[in-house]
């Protein structure tokens, strides 16, 4: 350390400043207590709190001034600066082991969880899927979509209304709802994708609201705020309810097992896990395909793309439809897991949350998005004990992440190419 004295004075000044700030902020809140019609003065409480803040800030500054603290700070800010790096030609051995381990864990885990944790995990997986889908649109193609929840709703209502009017089961509705969502994406995309940036964001925001309002107000068809019920999935005609509702045989009767309500959730989780794994694989491959490469090129520079013969409208449309399709699949799973849906599940807040997942994960990074989706859905559940502070802590965590990791949790690594490695 070069100048211990200056570090000490700086820490003291920092502490003093924080103390004054704490006093200003906390003084009126904790120092003046309303008692009937009178205000009681309890100034010792904010003073104590401010003193605690001062001590804390002083110690924090001192810790940062040491050699170790500085190197830690340097590492953090240096990492924050760099956004993208190029990966080594061959991934390290530890990473190659990670994939089969994760797959095995995902397959075994649901059998040991309580129903509550299973539902949390299913919801987390649905958000992973949504994050991966929106990542195609926002992270790869660079199209800001604020109404992504619309395609989620289309998927969910595709299952619920399909079963109500056309007697479709889960497995028929899954591809049909995905195609329906993609068609909606194409329908919305074709006229609006000539715009970019903020204009596109506003149009998609409007679209998201339109879908929700239609679902809410078209009472005869969608059931409006009363919602619609969605069928649970079946395994080759075997149902997971206590008594067969759709004309099949219950799963537990067929295998002569004790009835357990968890079976349904375990089954949903396993299908969802397979879909998410497949999606992760496909997104990874998409990035190395001409399609994914043109998406990323379009995000980088649209004019340059046009000069290279890339039709920017169809490329954007393909990204939009692909994203919508994934959203639709997630919607089907959401409907089947809840068994009942209504329009309140598809508010703008959902769109914002999915966007937060994509941004926090690092635009374009698959691993980052999976992590962010897990964190952002499991963390609020874990924080239920903190009741009303839950959202506050959630917000603080987001702000901190944006300060230290402005480019997302995981740094994006680009694949490297060499001539020998291709053979």
């Amino acid at each position, binding site marked *: 350390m070069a100048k211990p004295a200056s570090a000490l004075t700086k820490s003291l000044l920092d502490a003093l400043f924080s103390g004054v700030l704490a006093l200003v902020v906390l003084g009126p809140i904790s120092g003046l207590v309303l008692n009937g019609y009178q205000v009681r003065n309890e100034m010792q409480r904010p003073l104590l709190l401010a003193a605690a803040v001062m001590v804390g800030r002083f110690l924090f500054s001192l810790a940062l001034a040491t050699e170790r603290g500085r190197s830690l700070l340097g590492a953090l800010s240096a990492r924050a600066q760099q956004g993208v790096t190029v990966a080594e030609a061959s991934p390290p051995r530890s990473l190659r082991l990670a994939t089969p381990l994760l797959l095995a864990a995902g397959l075994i885990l649901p059998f040991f969880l309580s129903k509550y944790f299973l539902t949390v995990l299913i919801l987390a997986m649905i958000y992973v899927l949504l994050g991966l889908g929106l990542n195609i649109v926002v992270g790869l193609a660079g199209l800001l979509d604020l109404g992504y929840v619309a395609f989620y709703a289309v998927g969910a209502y595709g299952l619920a209304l399909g079963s109500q009017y056309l007697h479709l089961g889960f497995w028929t509705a899954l591809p049909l709802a995905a195609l329906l969502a993609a068609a909606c994406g194409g329908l919305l995309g074709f006229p609006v994708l000539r715009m970019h940036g903020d204009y596109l964001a506003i149009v998609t925001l409007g679209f998201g609201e339109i879908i929700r309002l239609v679902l809410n107000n078209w009472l005869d068809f969608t059931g409006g705020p009363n919602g619609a019920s969605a069928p649970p999935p079946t395994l080759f005609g075997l149902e997971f309810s206590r008594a067969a509702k759709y004309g099949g045989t219950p799963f537990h009767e067929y295998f002569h097992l004790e009835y357990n309500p968890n079976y349904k959730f375990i089954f949903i989780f396993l299908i969802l896990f397979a879909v998410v794994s497949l999606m992760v694989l496909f997104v990874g491959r998409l990035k190395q395909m001409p399609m994914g*490469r043109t998406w990323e090129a379009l995000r980088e520079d649209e004019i340059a793309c046009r000069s290279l013969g890339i*039709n920017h409208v169809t490329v954007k449309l393909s990204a939009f439809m692909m994203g919508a399709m994934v959203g639709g699949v997630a919607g089907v799973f959401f409907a089947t897991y809840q068994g009942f849906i209504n329009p309140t599940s598809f508010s703008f807040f959902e769109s914002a949350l999915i966007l937060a997942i994509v941004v926090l994960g690092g635009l374009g990074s698959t691993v980052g998005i999976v992590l962010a989706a897990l964190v952002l859905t499991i963390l609020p559940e874990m924080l239920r004990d903190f009741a009303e502070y839950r959202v506050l802590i959630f917000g603080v965590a987001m702000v901190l992440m944006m300060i230290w990791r402005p480019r997302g949790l995981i740094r994006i690594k680009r694949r490297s190419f060499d001539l020998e490695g291709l053979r």
Partner: protein
Amino acid sequence: MSVDPIHPPLLSVQGLTMRFGGIVALKEVSFDIRRGSISALIGPNGAGKTTVFNCLTGFYRATEGAIALHAGRRSVDLVRILGERFRPGDFANPALLASRLYYKMFGGSHQVARAGVARTFQNIRLFREMTVIENLLVAQHMRINRNPVSGLLRSAGFRASEREAVERSYAWLKVFGLAADANRLAGELSYGRQRRLEIARAMCTGPRLICLDEPAAGLNPQETDELRDLIRTLRDRHEVTVLLIEHDMGMVMGVSDHVVVLDHGEVIAEGTPHTVENDPAVLTAYLGADYAKGI
């Protein structure tokens, strides 16, 4: 210049006029570009050089005039493929209507690039957060197997086409002396290298005509010399016709066979570098009438 019907010029621009509202940026500009030549478009600032480029490469839709590219067996009208307004006469001619409708929906500057015209930009436009080789792979997308199903399943055909594309990229990187930077991010490269990469990327689209917008801007004298050799190599070995805008007169005079001089949106002189250099109209445009008279 007489038009030879058997060997027509690669590009012929006829009566190109471009108006932005009341401002006339280009007035009846006409010139031809011979196959296999290196031509330069020069003129004082604001003469309309970049506007000509943007019309040729489909970024602007010319108000009037025709641009014909004789790249393959058929000639392509670069104005029509941008998509034009419907005219009353179209509705009597279904074939014309269909073609207009097609270009209206799917036309645009990308069609010009597919017809065989590539370009670079005055302010470099690379895909900065992608690697150098990925920049070249994006440019080759018309030649790669683009079937999404075979890509997702990594079929043998897809892998072969990817391998071929990477090999072709490496071949171009060698030509431009960038092979060592193949796996660096394009945005990290030095300015001179970024300029070269942009030309390499344009070459990867397999163009017949490459339009370079101020390729020597911001380069030091040594880099400019290298660039001059590179442009000659492209023409001599890679069968491409070059059209460039340039302010570095040493480079223009040294490299080009044919020079077109623009001033206030009009062609004021055309010919070999030597004739243009001594043309009084050119001297007036660049140096002012008094100075030109004094010489």
